[in-house]
């Protein structure tokens, strides 16, 4: 009790609950008044602490009994809703496997479940979802979300030099800086990924029910919460696709995709369909974007034309000194390179004094002309 004899700073007093009680509630259980008067130096400290406390008021907003009990029942209601939601989907899913006629209903529920799950990553109580929740939480530090609400695609550059062309009504969550041995991003909607090569740090895209793993390639993922299928289409390199841990109890297969192959995950049936010839698939061909059709193999092509190709592919605007670069031609292969890498290679090929700067969809190239 006499630890207060050693108090030398205002802080010591402020943190003493009994002191607070004396000053604020005038309840002097420990003889503070007497103790204070014993010593002049002490009295000064006490007075300082008292004034500080008086100026540091926090209004106690004590809710009424009725408000409290309303809040409590609202919380129980939330709990009941979430428990019911979860049990319903799991139960009917289990039944659905044994009885075909229930399968449709179960799948429909699962779809609801997943689309809600994607937006409220942490609202359900299952072991599988807890692990996903933990995943997000683990990554939560510095996780940035970009949403494309415009009508044009948006280019996102990641910290490892990879680029993602995000389509309208889509969003991507990614860490500001990739740390650790894995690169993980979360997609809702559609994006075209060009991943910088790094075999030591595989790159994962979590999109609805599936996880796509690559070390460095380009591919497109389409995973809108409100559409029946999830698609992955590969342009270069090798891509592995597997179901999210959530579905692990159901099946645990991994599909390997090579260039110009695709995979369609049918959410209704929970099946993977590999598509070997994408040109014969009407849905895939109709949704092919500029960036996938354009060739980035250039042989003796004027620089302004190369830049125009990039503008079209990535829906960016490039500002460059037209006159100075008028005579410049390049032979280069830029396929399979993320946008920053493409720009770097172009600048390097033109000459030493050529640099680029990128700001959202605006790119500025400065140059003194080519070698």
């Amino acid at each position, binding site marked *: *009790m006499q630890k207060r004899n050693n108090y030398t700073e*205002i*802080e010591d007093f*402020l*943190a003493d*609950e*009994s002191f*607070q*009680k004396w*000053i*604020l509630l005038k309840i002097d*259980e*420990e003889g503070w008044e007497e103790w*204070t008067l014993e010593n*002049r130096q002490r*009295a*000064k400290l006490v*007075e300082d602490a008292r*004034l*500080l*406390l*008086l*100026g*540091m*008021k*926090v*209004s*106690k*907003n*004590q*809710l009424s009994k009725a408000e*409290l009990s309303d*809040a*409590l029942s*609202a*919380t129980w209601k*939330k*709990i009941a809703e*979430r*428990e019911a939601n979860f049990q319903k989907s799991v139960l009917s899913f289990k039944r659905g496997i044994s009885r075909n006629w229930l399968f449709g209903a179960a799948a429909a529920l699962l779809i609801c479940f997943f689309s809600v799950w994607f937006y409220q990553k*942490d*609202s359900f*109580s299952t072991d599988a979802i*807890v692990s996903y929740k933990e995943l997000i939480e683990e990554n*939560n*530090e*510095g*996780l*940035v*979300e*970009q*949403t494309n609400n415009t009508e044009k695609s948006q280019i996102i550059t990641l910290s490892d030099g990879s680029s993602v062309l995000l389509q309208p009504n889509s*969003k991507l969550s990614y860490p*500001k800086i990739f740390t650790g041995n894995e690169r993980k991003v979360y997609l809702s909607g559609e994006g075209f990924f060009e991943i910088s090569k790094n075999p030591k740090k595989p790159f994962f895209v979590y999109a609805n029910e599936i996880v796509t793993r690559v070390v460095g390639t380009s591919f497109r993922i389409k995973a809108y919460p409100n559409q029946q299928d999830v698609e992955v289409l590969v342009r270069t390199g090798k891509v592995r696709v597997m179901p999210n841990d959530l579905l692990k109890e159901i099946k645990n297969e991994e599909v390997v995709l090579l260039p110009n192959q695709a995979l369609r995950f049918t959410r209704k049936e929970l099946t993977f369909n590999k598509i070997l010839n994408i040109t014969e698939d009407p849905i895939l061909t109709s949704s092919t974007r500029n960036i996938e059709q354009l060739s980035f193999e250039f042989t003796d092509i004027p620089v302004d034309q190369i830049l125009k190709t990039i503008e079209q592919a990535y829906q960016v605007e490039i500002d460059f000194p037209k006159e100075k670069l008028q005579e410049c031609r390049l032979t280069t292969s830029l396929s399979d390179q993320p946008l920053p890498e493409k720009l770097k290679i172009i600048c390097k090929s033109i000459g030493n004094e050529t640099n680029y700067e990128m700001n959202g969809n605006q790119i500025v190239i400065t140059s003194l002309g080519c070698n």
Partner: protein
Amino acid sequence: MSHIIKNKLIDDAALWSNLKAGDEKSFSVLFEKYYSDLISYGNSLSPYSEKVQDCVQDVFADIWLYRNSLQEYVVVKAYLLSSVRKRIARLFERDHIFRKAASTESIEFLFDFSIENDLVEDELTAERVLYLNKLLNELPARQKEALYLRYHQGLNVEQIAEMLDVNYQSANNLLYRGLLSLRKDWKGSIPLILLLSTSVL
């Protein structure tokens, strides 16, 4: 007093472990005990009181739903405050999708300290308290939040460090610097008054 504090802690620990075992009554008791405090704290982080209510209720709902995976020994109050802070930060991130640097650091303590007017008896005190209050409210948001958590919520430095996602030393600095700059300004500007009041006492 100190034994009361101890009892309070034992109470919380018992309630917590009962809750983990599925006791609804313990859940309700903890809810009623801390709900108001959490709402006040939440309101100092976000101006949208309805969303704050939602967040606090979700924190409790989570506790119940995930009670099996909760840690055995926690300081309940610190855990609750920290969960509320995290949830509001997450909500904030979701609502500010175009902000590039959304993280737990981006939510700001909006709260202003007020004055215990009822306890200020004379004009001299009033003047000084008013001045102190002004200095306090001019502190950087994080320093203010650290002071609030330390002296109003009774958290220790370690718990504050964990909540604000900084190391122990930084949390200590937040508190210390807050008071230090206060003291400097304060003493620097009214030494005479101080002397006077000391002699009065």
